[in-house]
């Protein structure tokens, strides 16, 4: 067998795992690893400007492909800088392997230079973590790390490697294991047939059914099956923020996102439904509103690969533990074979009711109350210019909600955003992670002037590696989402939500070697955006001035039921 040092083993194991790009930042305890990287060409390393960005890049790669992304950081501050990115991936069930350096094993516990207990710090925000105790364990630990990250309910895995484990002069036989067996980890690979049968029996008797698609459909690559079931049964489908594109945005059966900023019709459909088939949504508090008032007439079928997501916040009438793809397949088979069908009359009047709801609000917004462009218009233009096919990587705030509401995704895995943690600063590195791996695709970062400044240093990385993403900054000169809450709940006392010292973004991006555009008038927007996307090999930053007074609507009334919503500044359901 080949003899390799620990450092070489790490790099070789990544190669054997099929990893092409890793994202990271060097430092003392990973120098052996960086030296091993230098001496090969299979695994390419992207040098970021802040470790948080490395984790978001790896995360976004995973969101777009389903395969674990990999980040490499040094001990101490390098590792702690990565924590936000690890937590971001954890909350959204994203597979990721983060390799952190550690001080030499004999120094652990002695407050050595750049020592932090990364196993302890990361524990609540990882699916699992490993600390390497001997170099010979490296291949099997890395194999396990990828296995755990990518199977079952995916999540981030940290591998903490003390520097002496990677010593270049200590060499050991290397063999990458073909498979892993963990006696305490056996994710389910199919749903319980009896439960699925029971669920379909109930579903087919529904008079006001709805399918709720969650992140599990996207993570579980089950969009095709979902689409087939929807079209076979002609039921309405709503989705969470994490499942945009599972069903095409322009599909007639799509009633849009539900929840706090969900569409009027989606929330009305949920409230009045008699059977909800939830596939891969964990009934987050931004989705359910007041749980005691949640969907009073509905029986709930809940499909999730993680039993802990079922009956956590909303009790399921029929729980099904299993992967969305397999469960949907079996559901399809049952529906196709069944002589029972949904009551056509009931379904018809259900759809009539839904059309009426669609007519009531339908995502309208005012354009006559401000000289400035509306943020919604910018997203609609982006949708038009890119035809619903772009990867849209969002930051966090109002712009994120507008993007979710107004961009009509044709495909799953193209809406890349931080839903569970809501991490400002996610957007730009996420767009970079996608663009690097899909160089031909249109990749947009939708951001705000607040969020973009949380990782703006990555414009430098984009320059170094030629990553021509399009940054669309909805510049409302304020932390809009915070400001909206202050308008609604604090009598417009705008405590610390205003930024009056913004940089000249055009000059700033130019200094990083990119193209800057400032757009103030809606009439200039489309042409500018077309020009930006036509500049295929340049990063273009569009600083778009939008109305700072605009609010995101609909917005559910706190602790109310699904149907309790503000539809505009003056109109309530």
């Amino acid at each position, binding site marked *: 067998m080949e003899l390799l040092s620990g450092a070489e083993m790490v790099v070789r194991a990544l190669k054997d795992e099929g990893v092409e790009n890793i994202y990271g930042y060097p430092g003392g305890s990973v120098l052996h690893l960086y030296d091993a990287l230098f001496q090969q060409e299979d695994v390419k390393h992207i040098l970021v400007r802040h470790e948080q960005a490395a984790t978001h890049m790896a995360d976004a790669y995973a969101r777009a492909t389903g395969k674990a992304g990999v980040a490499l950081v040094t001990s101490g501050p390098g590792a702690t800088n990565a924590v936000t990115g690890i937590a971001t991936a954890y909350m959204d069930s994203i597979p990721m392997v983060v390799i952190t350096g550690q001080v030499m094993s004999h120094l652990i516990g002695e407050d050595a230079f750049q020592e932090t207990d990364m196993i302890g710090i990361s524990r609540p925000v990882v699916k699992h973590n490993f*600390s390497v105790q001997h170099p010979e364990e490296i291949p099997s630990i890395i194999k396990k790390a990828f296995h755990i990250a990518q199977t079952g309910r995916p999540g981030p895995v940290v591998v903490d490697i003390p520097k002496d484990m990677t010593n270049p002069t200590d060499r050991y036989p290397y063999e990458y294991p073909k498979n892993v067996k963990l006696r305490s980890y056996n994710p389910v690979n199919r749903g319980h047939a009896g439960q699925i049968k029971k669920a379909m029996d109930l579903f087919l008797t529904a008079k006001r059914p709805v399918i709720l698609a969650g992140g599990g459909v996207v993570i579980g690559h089950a969009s095709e099956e979902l689409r087939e079931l929807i079209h076979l049964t002609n039921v309405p489908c709503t989705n969470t923020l994490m499942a945009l594109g599972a069903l095409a945005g322009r599909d007639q059966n799509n009633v849009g996102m539900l929840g706090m900023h969900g569409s009027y019709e989606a929330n009305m459909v949920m409230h009045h439904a008699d059977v909800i088939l939830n596939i891969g949504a964990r009934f987050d508090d931004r989705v359910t509103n007041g749980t005691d008032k949640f969907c009073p007439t509905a029986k709930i079928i809940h499909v999730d690969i993680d*039993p802990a997501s079922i009956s956590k916040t909303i009790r399921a009438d029929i729980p099904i533990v299993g992967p969305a793809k397999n469960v949907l397949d079996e559901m399809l088979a049952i529906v196709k074979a069944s002589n029972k069908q949904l009551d056509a009359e009931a379904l018809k009047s259900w759809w009539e009711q839904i059309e009426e709801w669609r007519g009531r609000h339908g995502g309208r917004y005012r354009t006559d109350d401000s000289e400035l462009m509306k943020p919604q218009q910018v997203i609609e233009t982006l949708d038009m210019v890119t035809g619903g096919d772009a990867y849209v990587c969002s930051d966090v705030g109002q712009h994120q909600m507008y993007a979710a509401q107004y961009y009509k995704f044709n495909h799953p895995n193209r809406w890349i955003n931080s839903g569970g943690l809501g991490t400002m600063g996610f957007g730009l590195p996420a767009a970079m992670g996608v663009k690097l791996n899909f160089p031909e695709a249109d990749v947009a970062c939708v951001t705000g002037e607040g969020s973009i400044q949380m990782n703006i240093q990555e414009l430098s990385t984009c320059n170094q590696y030629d990553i021509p993403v399009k940054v669309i900054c909805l510049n409302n000169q304020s932390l809009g989402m915070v400001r909206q809450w202050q308008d609604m709940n604090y009598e417009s006392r705008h405590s610390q939500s205003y930024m009056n010292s913004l940089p000249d973004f055009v000059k700033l991006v130019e200094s990083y070697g990119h193209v800057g555009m400032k757009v103030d008038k809606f009439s200039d927007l489309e042409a500018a955006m077309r020009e930006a996307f036509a500049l295929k090999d340049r990063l273009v930053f569009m600083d778009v001035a939008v109305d700072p007074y605009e609010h995101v609507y609909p917005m559910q009334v706190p602790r109310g039921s699904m149907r309790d919503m503000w539809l505009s500044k003056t109109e309530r359901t």
Partner: protein
Amino acid sequence: MRHIISVLLENEPGALSRVVGLFSQRNFNIESLTVAPTDDETLSRLTVTTQGDDRVVEQITKQLNKLIDVVKVVDLTEGEHIERELMMIKLKANNGTVRAEIKRTADIFRGQVIDATQNTFTVQLIGSSSKLDAFIEALSGASILEVVRSGVSGIARGEKVLSL
């Protein structure tokens, strides 16, 4: 309601901290916790007693099961089971009357005096947590110097076993 949850855990460094961390992270309560290796040296057995309604206890067992180091979980309170806890209690015993009184109470509870000095008795008692509580209650006349309890261990009655 009080639940006794038994866990088979990989005998790995850090495994215990994952379990304890889970309880604090998810706001689950821990009344007592015991852990020790089993006959199989790769496994530890952990028993935790906790309070919670059905929903909370369902979450506790599901979340425990999700930990990679957890091999098996059972809520012993769901079936017939035996629970035992060991207590050692040091009492002031500096005159004949007190000594006799302690001795008599210990006998009633089937405790044993396992150490004695001129001024103290140390009594050992094994039983359910409520029996141990009752013993402390019964000794309210005496002056307690120190109490140490092991926390609860539990096992299912009959032929049911928690093993690999």
